[in-house]
């Protein structure tokens, strides 16, 4: 029997933004296997032009509704590097604490609300409210906590209000931080239950050797700033992100594509873990071991597991940061900022992977030129190439149907937790 398969997904569901899957297998031969981004472009890099530096972080946050804290922090870091500003220690700790809140919030939303329904054979999280109330209760509890952490430290979860060039403008009260600390401690039991749940799922056994790009941790698992590393051995400084990302335009996509040593590369939780596993919190390492995640892991479906492992890591790290913050006097939280002509690059590990903002300023502190390289922009070409390989491995058997292959390919895309509107900024 000749194998013929057609998959045509217009606007894939349970991902942020608009992308299409198109697969055609004719007489056992792959004619087409594509992942394309059709999101409407917004032209943020143009909108930044001539804006004052005090405005940029607020505007940059609007690139993404899920990782607005990362975009804001990356943006103000780029400006601080351009103006040669060093922020006070308390401000750096509060920014990192908010970052941990966002990582937790974003990963939980993905793992439990967007990815998990596939493993329960449900179209969405909604039927699980009745069928798996205990899982939904945990999901709501954990997500509520991560939102409260962001609200307390960043002033708001979506589009933060406490971060400005030079530091932070708001210091949370100690009693609020201590309340969150108790909740974070308790959340570890919930995360353990989620990890047990994931160990009962079967992830597709799919390997495609991939280059992974992330920040390189020195003493700590990296989130904000530092040098860049790839699993193929390339290293660059933060400001030299261009030879690391090599963006180019693909005619079928409104998102750009990226490459480094191979035809594409991957960023995100799996990339961070693969490049920095030795720095992850020991309790998170235990969860990784239990779920079979070892560096360097080349199965993209394991990004779900890496996100869960990072959830455990950021909860432990958030508790440590709160301990340090409540034990010390906050002191100054804003450095003096004097605009000057020049360029600056910021690199931040957003939940979905490494993010770069690059600005060129005039001497009055207004932007002359801006460039942003976003995590999903870097992942899109890799998803596209993964999909061909996935169809090749699983799609050419007699048992395969249009529906089964559609689900498998959709799950592949969802594993990357794509933030498509972000990638077409």
């Amino acid at each position, binding site marked *: 029997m000749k194998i013929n398969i057609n998959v045509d997904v217009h*606007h894939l*569901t*349970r*991902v*942020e*933004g*608009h992308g299409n899957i198109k697969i055609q297998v004719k007489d056992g031969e792959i004619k087409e296997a594509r992942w394309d981004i059709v999101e*409407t*472009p*917004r*032209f943020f*890099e*143009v*909108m930044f*032009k001539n*804006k*004052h530096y005090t*405005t940029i972080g*607020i*505007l940059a946050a*609007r*690139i*993404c*509704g*899920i990782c*607005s804290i990362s975009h804001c922090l990356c943006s103000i870091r780029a400006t601080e590097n351009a103006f040669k500003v060093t922020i006070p220690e308390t401000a750096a700790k509060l920014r990192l604490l908010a970052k941990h809140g966002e990582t937790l919030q974003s990963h939980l*939303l993905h793992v439990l*609300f*967007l990815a998990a*329904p596939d493993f329960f054979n449900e*179209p*969405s*999280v*909604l039927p699980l*409210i009745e069928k798996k109330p205990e899982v*939904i209760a945990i999901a*709501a*509890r954990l*997500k*509520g906590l991560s*939102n409260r952490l962001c609200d307390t430290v*960043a*002033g*708001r*979860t*979506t*589009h*933060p*209000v*406490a971060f*400005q060039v030079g530091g932070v*403008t*708001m210091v949370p009260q100690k009693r609020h931080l201590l309340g969150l600390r108790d909740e974070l401690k308790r959340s570890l039991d919930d995360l353990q239950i989620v990890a047990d749940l994931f160990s009962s799922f079967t992830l597709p056994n799919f390997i495609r050797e991939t280059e992974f790009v992330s920040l390189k941790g020195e003493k700590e698992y990296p989130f904000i700033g530092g040098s860049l590393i790839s699993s193929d051995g390339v290293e660059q400084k933060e400001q030299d992100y261009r030879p690391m990302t090599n963006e180019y*335009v693909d*005619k079928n996509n*409104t998102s750009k594509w990226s490459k480094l040593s191979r035809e594409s590369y991957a960023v995100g939780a799996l990339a961070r873990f693969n490049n920095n596993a030795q720095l992850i919190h020991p309790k998170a390492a235990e969860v990784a071991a239990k779920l079979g995640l070892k560096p360097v892991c080349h199965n993209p479906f394991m990004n779900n597991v890496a996100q869960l492992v990072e959830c455990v890591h950021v909860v432990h790290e958030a508790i440590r940061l709160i301990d340090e913050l409540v034990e010390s006097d906050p002191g100054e939280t804003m450095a003096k900022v004097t605009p000057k002509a020049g360029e600056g690059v910021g690199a931040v590990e957003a939940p979905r992977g490494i993010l770069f903002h690059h600005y060129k300023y005039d001497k009055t502190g207004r932007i002359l030129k801006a460039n942003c390289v976003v995590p999903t922009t870097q992942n899109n070409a890799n998803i596209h190439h993964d999909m061909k390989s996935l169809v090749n491995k699983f799609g050419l058997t007699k048992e395969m149907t249009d529906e089964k292959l559609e689900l498998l390919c*959709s799950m592949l895309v969802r594993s990357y937790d794509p933030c498509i*509107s*972000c990638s077409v900024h």
Partner: protein
Amino acid sequence: MKYLGIEPQKPKIAVFDFTGCEGCQLQLLNKEETLADFLSAVEIVCFREASSLCSDDYDIAIVEGAVSRNDEVKRLEKIRETAKVVVALGSCACFGGVNRLKNEFDLKAANKEVYGKDPKETINVRPVKDIIPVDIEIPGCPVSKAEVESLICHVVWDSPFQLPVYPVCVECKQRFTTCLFDIGQMCLGPITRAGCNAPCPAGGIGCWGCRGPAVEPNYKSFFAIVKEKGFSDIELKERLNFFGAFGEVNVS
């Protein structure tokens, strides 16, 4: 969820996204303490970001994002034909939002700057009401989930739905936030519609007017104060333009 022993009608709701950051949709899944009640009060038949199911049979269309491409115009027209009620969700849907800043640039040059020799289709950003009639607007960047809940209560139980008529200043007073003008910063609080609980002034960045004008704002006095405090017309215009919500206001 019964009310006075009677099962209420669940409105069929569809959520659609256009040009924007999708942060307002995300708010629909927030406010975890009432999330289960919220979801059980309605029947969500289409919500691409959260569910793989989608039906064309719906009463209320919640539309997020602005319009910036011709295919979006067609999608909106079809939604208007199907829905009994169209809700514009968030500042992008209501006013165009920050996306509208793009309109100040030449689109051909902008396209060349971002995409080089492979330009992508794009048109000037417009709010939803410029394309189809909108029944209810919930402004905000992002929206307040409490206002979305209030809208659902309005549709299900006919309880009143009313956005605050007073400005953000009232909410700053309620939460004891020091006036931003008193510490030398610009703030659109005096002319912007409240309902957000004023997080931006409390965070130290002042109000940027994402919810649009309050009812009958006193622009004349506000502009006089801005001038008296030493801010330039350019600073004021930039802030009024930020979310595209004060389009018809003339500063001078």
